[in-house]
């Protein structure tokens, strides 16, 4: 069931919010030992909120599409009175006195908060194998990674524990778990959604967005959380629109760029097949698909890595006296960041500006790009290398190579499932657009979804 279907059912009194919340909590209880999607479950609070939602709907008070809908948030969003760990020891006793802006917006919209989702430690990694709160597992096959850093968000949405989960994306951390867990994931334009009350990883790269079961649900979530926030210095005043695509939305005439170099190199064959199939479907729906050459993505990834290494090291500086509190992978990245000279950080930001102006030229040729979200389906838990295109790659760098650069550019990107691999794991594509063109991405994604691009529900749900 999607948010739209649940919202319709609540208003038709086919079921209550308490029933939805009770079902969600039962799913969490059933899956928690195996998948470890949650760090904190706020069952009592959720049921109180659900009862209030039911009372309000019965009284004719309607707060909108999220009224009475069970959702959850990654454990780096401030939640008033509820511990917020960032998946780390550094914040293990942090109980915020305020809500993040996005949490406040969801609660104001009547959402029912189920709890705080597990994640990669400090949001700094792609496995969600959290050394402190247990490893999140992939619901399609627990022997495989759920991706990260928003791994709990992906697992919770795929198994229908939550209708929507908020995640954050600094170098792919929404799109990677969405791809590996078979959900929709939206990284909006930088500045579109407030980061106030969100534990930072990389100030100039952090984005907040939803993981959902459908494209239109992602659009509903963006409607709920987008908008200017004076408490976030990067927040944009760019005008908002209704992001939800029409029922019969069309992509006829939309110019879709197909970046055949870089994005289609060194892929798992099942990924290439599924994404090319989706592109063919877009063309059959009247989109104008054309190959497009992009500026140097390898260079862009290097620039994004230098920026992130430096910014994350700056964020973690106060915690570095107690090195033993970090997992080995996160510690290694933080140490690397401490060795990046200040001049390199500034030069990376100079290159970033140069590259953004080069990339902005792409939008004169096409309206959006379609590419794989990850070069392979979810790797096995514990694998450190992966063989793609005849060469061995570091799993972290391979998994982030198609998503990381978009964070440095700040462009919006929508990930959606487009097939299953031969081994039964989800494959995700991403639609990348010009700044503040989320509505176009969502319309394109919805048109594909309406016309058969997708996967069946996760068997574990």
């Amino acid at each position, binding site marked *: 069931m999607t948010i739209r279907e649940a919202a319709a059912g609540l208003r038709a009194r086919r079921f209550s919010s308490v029933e939805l919340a009770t079902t969600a909590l039962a799913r969490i209880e059933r899956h928690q030992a195996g998948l470890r999607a949650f760090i904190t479950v706020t069952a009592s609070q959720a049921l109180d909120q659900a009862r209030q939602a039911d009372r309000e709907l019965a009284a004719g008070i309607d707060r909108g599409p999220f009224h009475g809908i069970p959702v959850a948030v990654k454990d780096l969003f401030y939640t008033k009175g509820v511990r917020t760990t960032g998946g780390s020891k550094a914040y293990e006793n942090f109980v915020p006195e305020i809500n993040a802006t996005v949490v406040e917006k969801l609660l104001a919209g009547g959402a029912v908060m189920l709890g705080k989702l597990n994640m990669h430690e400090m949001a700094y990694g792609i496995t969600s194998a959290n050394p402190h709160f247990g490893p999140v597992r992939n619901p399609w096959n627990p022997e495989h990674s759920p991706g990260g850093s928003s791994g709990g968000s992906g697992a919770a949405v795929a198994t229908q524990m939550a209708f929507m989960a908020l995640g954050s994306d600094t170098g792919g951390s929404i799109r990677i778990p969405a791809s590996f867990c078979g959900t929709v994931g939206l990284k909006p334009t930088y*500045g579109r959604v407030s980061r106030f009350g969100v534990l930072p990883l990389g100030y100039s790269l952090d984005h907040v967005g939803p993981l959902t079961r459908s494209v239109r649900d992602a659009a509903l979530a963006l409607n709920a959380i987008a908008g200017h926030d004076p408490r976030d210095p*990067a927040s944009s*005043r760019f005008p908002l629109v209704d992001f939800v695509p029409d029922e019969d939305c069309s992509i006829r005439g939309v110019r879709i760029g197909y970046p055949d170099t870089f994005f289609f190199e060194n892929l798992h064959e099942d990924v290439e097949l599924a994404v090319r199939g989706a592109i063919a479907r877009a063309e059959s729906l009247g989109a104008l698909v054309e190959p497009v050459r992009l500026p140097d993505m390898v260079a862009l990834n*290097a620039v994004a*890595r230098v920026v992130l290494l430096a910014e994350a090291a700056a964020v973690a500086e106060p915690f570095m006296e107690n090195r033993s509190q970090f997992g080995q992978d996160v510690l290694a990245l933080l140490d690397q960041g401490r*060795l990046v000279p200040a001049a390199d950080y500034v*030069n990376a930001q*100079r290159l970033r500006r140069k590259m*953004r102006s080069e990339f902005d030229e792409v939008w004169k040729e096409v309206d959006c790009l379609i590419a794989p979200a990850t070069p392979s389906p979810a790797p096995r838990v514990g694998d450190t290398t992966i063989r793609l295109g005849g060469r061995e790659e570091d799993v972290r*760098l391979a998994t982030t190579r198609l998503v990381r650069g978009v964070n440095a550019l700040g462009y919006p990107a929508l990930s959606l499932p487009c097939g299953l691999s031969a081994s039964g794991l989800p494959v995700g594509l991403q639609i990348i657009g010009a700044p503040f063109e989320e509505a176009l991405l969502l319309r394109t994604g919805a048109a594909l979804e309406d016309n058969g691009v997708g996967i069946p529900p996760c068997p574990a749900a």
Partner: protein
Amino acid sequence: MDRAPQAGRFGIVVLMKNWQAIAQAHGLDLSARDLERVAPPLAALEEVFRPLVKQLTPDMEPDLELHLYGEGE
């Protein structure tokens, strides 16, 4: 690395850095095991990043504002 390093991509020789010495200069006393986790990724990143820096001209300014399109406060 995001892809195999391209030696001489821009005709520039990238000098090997002594990461242990750099770490010590930063007050970071890394064990041999820690250094093994830190040095190879940085060296690989250096091979791609350093030639890019060499392309910069003084008029190219950094992108240091925290908002993209002049919309923030």
